[in-house]
């Protein structure tokens, strides 16, 4: 616990970190949730376990995008590119060069972080929408580069990655429940890491850049350093998520990493609640299960053989629009509003303010 003092005339007031903490959280529900997470594969079938593994990848990816977009306010449409870099560099390091599993994962992460400098350094001069355009271009370029370097990535015919991870004492096949425990341990680590990140010095610097980069710079935040750090951390985690995606899917091709994937991850943040870690997790779970529900809906409503992508596009688009227009803070924001409503139940104000929350977006 750090303390610092402020002089007010003759008075000296001592502050500590804990005194200026803005919200107090009750965390009693975290332990049961973790236990439930680990018990879940006992009750569901193998296909659901496979889906839950994909959910884990989505959670890691969404949290990493949240660090960049929600915490630091750098709108990125290029997350699919980092996924692709992670997946392909894991594949190349592991399958072509026969590096170890652990080393390949770490190298994939570092490779993603290295390439993120390509956007991170110009991001000092590119603000808001320019950055969105640049990152979108980055997605297109990486997708095309995978097609271009055929001898390394096998181009459109797909790159086969081994679905087994050898931890030394146990071999994990990504279709089996054992893998589930492994990947959810990593998910929990990533979530805890990003919670700590949000409340650390680094996270405070990120949020100050999000709220106003000029004000942040004036109050002593090194803009270049912190923006590059945000990009590097985010793309490190995203690349590792991409590597896991490669392990789970088994065969990766450039179409898996198109602009739609980037948009997908942004939608997760919008639906869950941008700028909050739990929101990203909720959004990731919701969006990953959505195609399953859409397929069920298609089977129930439409004649068989209807093209699935019509319904998918329609529902995705409508969900984005409905959330943006009616609840831009997502599920988590709505949950906080409801919680606060019940917290001060007899004495609440007439209307629940919506405008105050929107300040989170910038």
């Amino acid at each position, binding site marked *: 616990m750090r303390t610092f003092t402020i002089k007010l005339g003759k008075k000296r007031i001592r502050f500590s970190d804990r005194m200026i903490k803005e919200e107090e959280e009750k965390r009693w529900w975290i332990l049961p949730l973790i236990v439930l997470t680990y018990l879940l594969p006992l009750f569901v079938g193998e296909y659901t376990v496979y889906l839950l593994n994909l959910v884990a990848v989505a959670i890691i990816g969404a949290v990493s995008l949240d660090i960049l977009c929600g915490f630091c306010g750098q709108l990125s449409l290029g997350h699919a590119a980092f996924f692709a870099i992670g997946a392909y560099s894991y594949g190349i390091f592991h399958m072509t060069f026969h590096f170890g599993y652990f080393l390949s994962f770490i190298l994939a992460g570092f490779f993603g972080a290295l390439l993120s400098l390509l956007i991170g350094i110009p991001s000092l001069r590119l603000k808001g929408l320019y950055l969105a355009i640049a990152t979108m271009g980055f997605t297109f370029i990486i997708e095309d580069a995978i097609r271009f370097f055929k001898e390394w990535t096998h181009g459109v015919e797909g790159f086969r990655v081994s679905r087994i991870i050898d931890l030394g004492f146990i071999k994990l096949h990504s279709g089996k429940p054992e893998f589930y425990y492994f990947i959810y341990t990593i998910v929990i680590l990533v979530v805890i890491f990003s919670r700590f990140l949000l409340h650390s010095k680094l996270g405070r610097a990120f949020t100050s850049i999000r709220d106003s980069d000029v004000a942040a710079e004036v109050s002593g935040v090194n803009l270049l350093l912190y923006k590059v750090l945000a990009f590097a951390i985010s793309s490190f985690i995203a690349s590792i998520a991409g590597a896991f995606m490669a392990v789970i899917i088994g065969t990766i091709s450039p179409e898996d990493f198109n602009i739609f994937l980037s948009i997908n991850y942004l939608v997760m943040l919008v639906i869950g609640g941008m700028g909050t870690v739990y929101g990203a997790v909720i959004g990731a779970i919701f969006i990953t299960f959505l195609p399953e529900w859409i397929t069920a809906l298609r089977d129930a409503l439409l004649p068989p053989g209807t093209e699935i992508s019509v*319904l998918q596009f329609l529902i995705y688009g409508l969900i984005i629009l409905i959330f943006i227009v009616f609840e831009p803070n997502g599920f988590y924001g709505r949950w906080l509003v409801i919680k606060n409503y019940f917290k001060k139940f007899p004495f609440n104000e007439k209307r629940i303010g919506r405008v105050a929350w929107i300040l989170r977006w910038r």
Partner: protein
Amino acid sequence: MVIIDGIVNGVALGCVYALIALGFVLIYKATKIINFAQGEIMMFSSYICYTFITFFHFNFILSFVLAVFAGFLLGSVLEKLFIRPLIGYPILPVVIATIGISMVLQAIAGLLWTFEPQKMDPFPMTPHQFWKVTISPVHLWTIIITVALMIIFFVFFRYTILGISLRAIAEDLLGSMASGIAVRRMFNFTWGLASALSAIAGVLVAPIVFLHPHMGVVGLRALPAAVLGSFGSIPGAIVGGLVLGLSETIAGLYLPKEIKDVFPWLVLFVVLIIKPEGIFYRYEQKKV
């Protein structure tokens, strides 16, 4: 004579890029957001033109005009429905909302016209011969229509009260509100105008790329053109589009196909790293 053909093709492609980029720039100037649904509006209105030609058997010019009107209507309806409630929001949610619009439009196009690519080539096939240059009618008409539109736009922004008030809004929103310009109606009009432009571009580009619900990606390729000519400058968008189209076609003659497809984005990257303000940059004061 390959290089001259390349130049002609490049100018035609550049004209299409310029039209779409102009749409981006118009919306950006008025409302300070980028409309990522521009390409999809383009796709939708060229499908409407296609429907008029094949199902109602209208002649081409009539259906072209009708498609442009449909584009105008589509743009203003979309603005009214989804962008109007978001006035005053920060840019990010509005931009994501336009992405949502683009997805919905793709889905509706898929429902109405299926995902089979359709061919629409209403222009005559026989190429014109000028002096030593052969030029196909599509390219000729693209260039003629674009030049005519540029002249119309110049006159519109210079001499009509509507154009002047659009410029005033771009310059100073509060001031133009105070002096009695109906700003909201103008936003709506801007969206309609930009959508009509992209409808024209869509009909002109449809013979080159097949009609397909995912055709809107072509529209996104005009974004680098707008960036190249500094977002928010109308002559910049035109010059940017021409430069981009020319360089893409000429590079396509010498480079492998994979690079040609992402060429606009490579150009964008180079521009953003070297000179992110673009060519036609005008100093703009920004309040913090």
